[in-house]
């Protein structure tokens, strides 16, 4: 059954709690904002602690808040099959910084991180195989960013795109 936000915070040990920047539960879903550099430790703790037991990474995605800073947010949705509860983790990222990859904690993060990289240009450090997944390798630009036009930029494959070219990616 759903575990409350306070119960999750109580189960975190001090080392992990220091990585939690803020916590809230919109619509009843416990959400923790984690310091991006410590995400792997936090995830490993969440997976390995029996009382928490978040062994299933449901989803990993990026969000672009342009023109606010920090611009990006990487959102992780976790589920515990044994305890049947869910958790959301968020990491705020300034444009151009890297975030460690969680593939060492859950292998399923591999393609999710590739998709986030492909769509947003968020680089995951220590990812075993970080390359584009939907767009072709020579594609330039990060499609899901807010400043990327819906129809893309005009090039040899896309006669309907906007004039111009994507800004220099950081």
């Amino acid at each position: 059954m759903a575990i409350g936000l306070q119960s999750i915070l109580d189960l975190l040990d001090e080392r992990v709690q220091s990585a939690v920047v803020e916590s809230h539960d919109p619509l009843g879903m416990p959400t923790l904002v984690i310091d991006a550099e410590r995400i792997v430790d936090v995830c490993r703790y969440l997976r390995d602690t029996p009382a928490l037991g978040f062994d299933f990474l449901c989803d990993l995605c990026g969000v672009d808040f342009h023109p606010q800073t920090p611009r990006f947010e990487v959102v992780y949705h976790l589920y515990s099959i044994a305890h049947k509860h869910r958790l959301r983790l968020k990491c705020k990222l300034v444009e151009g910084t890297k975030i460690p990859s969680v593939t060492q904690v859950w292998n399923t993060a591999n393609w999710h991180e590739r998709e986030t990289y492909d769509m947003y240009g968020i680089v995951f450090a220590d990812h075993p195989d970080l390359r584009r997944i939907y767009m072709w390798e020579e594609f330039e630009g990060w499609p899901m960013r807010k400043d990327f036009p819906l129809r893309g930029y005009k090039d040899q494959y896309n006669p309907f795109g906007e004039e111009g070219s994507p800004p220099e990616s950081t």
Partner: protein
Amino acid sequence: MTDVTVLDKRTEGEDLTKEVLLNLGPQHPSTHGVLRVLLKMQGEDIVDVDTIIGYLHRGTEKLAEGFTYTQIIPLTDRLDYLCQPSNNLAFVRGVEQLCGIEAPERAQYIRVLLAELSRISGHLLISGALPMDLGAMTTLLYTMREREMIMDLLEMATGARMNVSFCRVGGIREDLPAGFDAKAREFCKIFLQRIDDYERLVGENRMFLKRTEGVGVITGPEAIDWGLSGPCLRASGVDWDIRRDEPYEIYDRLEFDVIVRESGDCFDRWKCRMEEMRVSVSLMLQCLDQMPHGPVMVDAPEIAFPPDKKQVKSSMETLIHHFQLSAYGFKVPKGEVYAAIEAPKGELGFYIISDGSEKPFRMKVRAPSFVNLQSLNVIAKRCYLADVIAMIGSLDPVLAEVDK
């Protein structure tokens, strides 16, 4: 006298084969869509696998940022195009949670009824396509016959065989027509016999068993680690079904078994789907029995269209209300939600961030086929080329969902 020098050389440990890169290209009858698999092979053994997707990428998430919530519903149809009412349901549930409303009971029953019908439809296709990929082409045409019956039912209820866009935020588009109940029950009665026929036709066939048993084994912990869900996970012995563990809509009032099998090979994944179809028939009959009378759309004028369409032509206020909703959409309170359902392929989740306007700020689709297909890179390394086909078929990727 046969030349046995070839065999002699082999036993000495010398490689007779060289590494070859084989492209199981995007256009291929067995890849269930535009899927490209690069296989590095040593003879028939697969050494390395690279799955390349993106040939059907249509930018659903980017489009969704410019559409109102009702306009996104047809976009969700085109995700897993074999079981479309399920996709609609998942998305609409997310928006309803953001708005803080709940669909009326009758609408929930109808949604679950159509979701289970679409589950049967989705499972039927792969139950027929997997044997066809392995050479038994008859099965597909028989399962298509049942799918035609399902599409007739869908056409009766929603007006469309495919791309139904039936669910709305707050309910469904319109009530079921008279006669649907009788036709649905007739389908259930016929279909239960047909599942037995398929299991006898294919499930006891020695060739099919030889090609699928023991092939593509994924253990339970591996499956969880790689994020598998749905029948693929349950075939590996992990007992998880969102309909039972986190009941949504009216699933808490229905009784059903969750099918879990132990070996995690291709045959178990296929068999899991066959048995789930029986469970879906039972769920459909329970829905038909328990369905109450009542409205099918929530009573919230800021979200729902005016209930009486004819009034639009006679009353000015109704006309303005209708126009306002169809031209501009309705505002959804600021917030974020992750709504997951047990789609036929696995856990279909929608992560929707709303900024208070009529269009979502971000919509992320957690497509089950995308995650399930990832495990192909792992299991395909342990087999021969012919087994890769069985594995792709048993993982049941729908490329529209994989590529969004």
